[in-house]
């Protein structure tokens, strides 16, 4: 039986192992380079306007001197029941058949309701036109559109890489193999804390890891049904 007959759609998902994350922020840098994320200066960052599709939230636990830092990478959770989608008046925020939570840049008019309604504050807004100091504008990724002033953007799970792998697989008459798609953050993570894959494939690494007893979803009680599973040892 060939893979080509498998008609199940893909259901992309990610696992983030908090026991492995060191908070090094390599994923943040890789995401910036891959996705043409604008460079926000110091002043904009101080205003809280620095755009990051993935960020490392740092929480302190305990009282000095017995204090430890906890790191949690937060990106768009690609919720199956996404609060950002129904509130958009123009269908700029919508759900792809693969379970991605997509943002249609051309359609967005910037009412920003989606930004308010995302409990993870994963959505980022272009307050101005983007700008890159030379020579950085020479290294933009040609596969990713540059977003203009006045629209929302956020993590796409590196949809350009997903597309490429899917087209390749389709031309060879098979399903995408596990590990064939590697988003930039996953590719760069030095401790392999991030894993990406198809949740519809029970044998994919992502499915196996997510079923472990360390798994939880962020703000699970809201019922947003995120595609990202966090792993954390309870101690």
């Amino acid at each position, binding site marked *: 039986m060939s893979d080509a007959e498998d008609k199940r759609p893909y259901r992309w998902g990610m696992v983030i192992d908090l026991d492995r994350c060191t908070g090094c922020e390599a994923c943040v840098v890789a995401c910036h380079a891959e996705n043409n994320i604008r460079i926000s200066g110091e002043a904009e960052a101080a*205003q*809280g*306007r620095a755009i990051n599709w993935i960020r490392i*939230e*740092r*929480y302190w636990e305990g009282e000095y001197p017995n204090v430890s830092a906890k790191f949690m990478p*937060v990106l768009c959770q690609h919720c199956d029941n996404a*609060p950002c989608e*129904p*509130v*958009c*008046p*123009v*269908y700029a925020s919508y759900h792809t058949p693969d379970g991605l939570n997509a943002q249609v840049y051309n*359609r*967005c*008019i*910037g*009412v*920003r*309701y989606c*930004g*308010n*309604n995302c*409990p*993870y*504050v994963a*959505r*980022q*807004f*272009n*307050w*101005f*036109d983007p700008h890159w100091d030379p020579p950085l504008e020479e290294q933009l990724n040609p596969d990713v559109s540059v977003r203009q*002033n*006045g*629209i*929302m953007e956020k993590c796409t799970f590196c949809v350009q890489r997903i597309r490429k792998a899917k087209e390749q697989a389709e031309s060879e008459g098979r399903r995408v193999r596990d590990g064939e798609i590697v988003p930039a953050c996953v590719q760069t993570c030095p401790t392999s804390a991030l894993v990406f894959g198809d949740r519809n494939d029970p044998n994919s690494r992502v499915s196996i890891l997510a079923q472990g007893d360390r798994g939880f979803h962020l*703000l699970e009680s*809201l019922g947003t049904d995120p595609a990202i599973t966090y792993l954390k040892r309870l101690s």
Partner: protein
Amino acid sequence: MATRDSVWNEMPAINRDLLAPLLTISARYLALVAGLATLVAAGAGVWLYQIETGIGQTNMHPPVFWSSYIASFVYWIGVSHSGTFISGVLRLTKAEWRRPITRIAELMTIISVMIAALCVFFHLGRVWRWYYLLPYPNQRQIWPDFRSPLMWDATAIFTYATASTIYLYLPLIPDFALARDRVGGWRQRLYALLCLGWKGSQQEWETLNTAIRIVTPLIVMVMVSVHSIVGWDFGMSLVPGWHTSIIAPYFVVGAVHSGLGMVAIGLYVVRRTYRLEGYIRSEHFDKLGKLLVVTTLTLAYLYFADQLTVWYGKKPDEMAILHSLVAGPYAVPFWTMIVLIYVGPLVLLTAPSFRAWPAGMMLMGVGINVGMYVERALIIVPPLTHPRLTYQWSDYFPAWSELVILAGALAMAVLLYVLLAKFVPLISIWEEKEGRLHAASR
């Protein structure tokens, strides 16, 4: 006690008094128009600058994606409820004291709906693509998403603006006919067009009264639904502090509260400017004051019910917001608001002597409106600055550009009113006459 005959003798004086504003233009009037136009131009200039450079000219940043423009939108929609509430509800209940007030209030409705819509345009990130919100058959066959509360809102406001315009226009027809017969020049032709050839026959009066009787209950229902839907813009979200079922009735009552306050200001200014003390009497301020006591108590009750539930439940997401209001960074505006919209009105308006004092009622209207504006801002900002993931906690205060644009919008509202005062009789002339005849024959 006036007899029917003596009332008939008053008619020429009523015509003269109430049409006078249409026939005179003073130097002070022109200076006021020029001053307001300058403010509007300043606001328009800053808005163009914001469109050209980016919405980043505001102080918004994640997670505060909505702020002063949306607060102003909610505020202006609230003010627009004055006209429909006063004239709709009072017409339905056949309250005689409504007669000199309805037109003044209905004009406020039309103008503030327009200003509210303008605030949405200030807010849009790509305002030059605003027409994506229209359900027009475009080439790609993409429609707006009617699951979004914002689309409900756009529909509701369009309905409200249309209905209020009809509601303002119907009782204006006999007055336009009167103006046609007494105002010369180019305006005569315009009035002749607008009064639809009104002759004043018995059949015309019956048709007009039937039309008003049909539209009045409809517009009251539209009014309640419009501000409920504005409330649901917030209520339908997951944001702690917004996601509450009480928000729709709370918004409706809050809207009427600020609207009544605005009517008190309007009554005072119109009465003073055009010396209409014989028409707008202290009795009217007294009745308005009593209505304001009702809205104060209702609003306070709803607010208390909401906050008590939050406080007793002690859910951390919502407690963070309540704490920031009561004793945190928003304590000063919060307690100012409590005094201006609850405590002040309750203490002063329950005193009959205060209600009979027009200047005091005007100041009370100003206080209530300032308080309600702060209240709108406090509904929007503190919940947004306290998202569930505490790492993202933030703060917000409007930028100078936001303040200039919004001041320009306020100036535009006043300017439109000032201009309309020279075109529309501010007191419904035929209804005033009808009221005096009713009183005389009772």
